[in-house]
């Protein structure tokens, strides 16, 4: 048993490394997401001006920018396999769950990079008041987990439809609306100096539920 677990850990690790390498070679997804985040931030701050004293606007804008930047390229992980016709090869060497978990970890990493670029830029461009880091990172981290879990599963489903990438944002976004709502409310609360416990609890519950269900469903992603 322990041998089997360690070998699937090795497979997951190998898939994660493969994902990182092929992303690094083209930087297609990362470029798209970062460019999207930067241009939408520019558009927003240019249109609305700096607003250091409006936490409710700031938190909404931050989450919308993050969510759309992520959704603009997160279906890529699976669509790339379909377009390159490499999925069959991948499935010969790994089980569906291993593939999906590897892609999930890659998506998490990808989101962290996008956030590490977007959030500081957002702070500078909008002149937002300083963040209360522990609270903010809790909300952001939990939101990122839900985002990664849902986009991995939905991305794998969408890659098999007729329209491939086109439908991804439309189908993912409704599932992520609860994350957006409590993420915005938690971010606003940390700027206002209010407790974030109820938002964090809701986000955590949602993330855990998405993760649990995803793990059960990965096996059914592809037909033999």
């Amino acid at each position, binding site marked *: 048993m322990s041998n089997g677990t360690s070998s699937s850990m090795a497979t997951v690790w190998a898939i994660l490394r493969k994902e990182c390498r092929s992303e690094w070679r083209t930087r297609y997804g990362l470029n798209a997401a970062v460019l999207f985040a930067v241009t939408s931030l520019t558009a927003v701050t240019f249109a609305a001006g700096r607003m250091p004293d409006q936490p409710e606007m700031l938190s909404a804008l931050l989450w919308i920018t993050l969510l759309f930047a992520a959704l603009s390229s997160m279906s890529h992980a699976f669509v790339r396999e379909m377009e390159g016709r490499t999925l069959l090869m991948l499935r010969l060497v790994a089980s569906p769950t291993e593939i999906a978990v590897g892609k999930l970890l890659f998506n998490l990493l990808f989101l962290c990079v996008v956030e590490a670029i977007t959030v500081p830029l957002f702070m500078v461009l909008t002149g937002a008041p300083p963040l209360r880091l522990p609270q903010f990172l809790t909300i952001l981290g939990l939101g990122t987990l839900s985002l990664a879990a*849902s986009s991995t*599963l*939905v991305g794998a*489903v*969408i890659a*098999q*439809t*007729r*329209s491939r990438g086109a*439908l991804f944002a*439309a*189908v993912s*976004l*409704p*599932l992520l*609306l*609860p994350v957006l*709502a409590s993420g915005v*409310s938690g971010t606003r609360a940390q700027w206002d100096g209010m407790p974030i416990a*109820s938002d964090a*609890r*809701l986000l955590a*519950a*949602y993330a855990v*539920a*998405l993760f649990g*269900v*995803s793990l059960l*469903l990965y096996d*059914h*992603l592809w*037909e033999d």
Partner: protein
Amino acid sequence: MLWRWLIFVWIAATMVVALLSAPLVPVLQETTRVLYFHIPSAWVTVLALGWSMINSMLYLIRRDLRNDDHAAAAAELGLVFCVVATVTGSIWAKSMWGSWWNWDPRETSIFFVLLIYGAYLALRASIEGEEKRARLSAIYSILAFVAVPPLMFVVPRIYSTLHPDPIINGSGKIDMDPMIRWCFFSMLLGFTFLYTWLQSLRVRVSRLERRLAT
């Protein structure tokens, strides 16, 4: 055949009793009456979406297309009843809160449910091949149902809302006038049977469609 008429008579009779002779709740006044449509629709929504999720799971286990018919029909009907609950709620909000739509946590969460299942139907429409469609939509339907309990039951209890206390409230008992309670549960039963009938109808239609296609 006969029980279809029974449902009709049952709901019509309850409606007459509820609208003519049941008393009004002090704060809600005349708007009490919306309760007989609003809550049963919301209940049927959860029931239908749950049934869709159960059938999606059964499909993934057994790979029987009849389960997929049930899952799709239940999601469609859940969406229809969700629209009824949203519209009746909105009408009630107009007379109690003074505006049709105010992004109260209750309104927000039911709207999210509408969007999620709208996306489910959009996804179904974009997949070619029966079995692939059944399998992929089953996956999405199960994932979608993860959002339903938090949205329908948790959000309204965490965030402050102006919505009247849910039936299963903090005190754990039902504070209703006996007459209202009688009408309410009778309507709940009527709506449940109405849903079962519509569900069987929709499933039969999908089965016939499949037979015609092959």
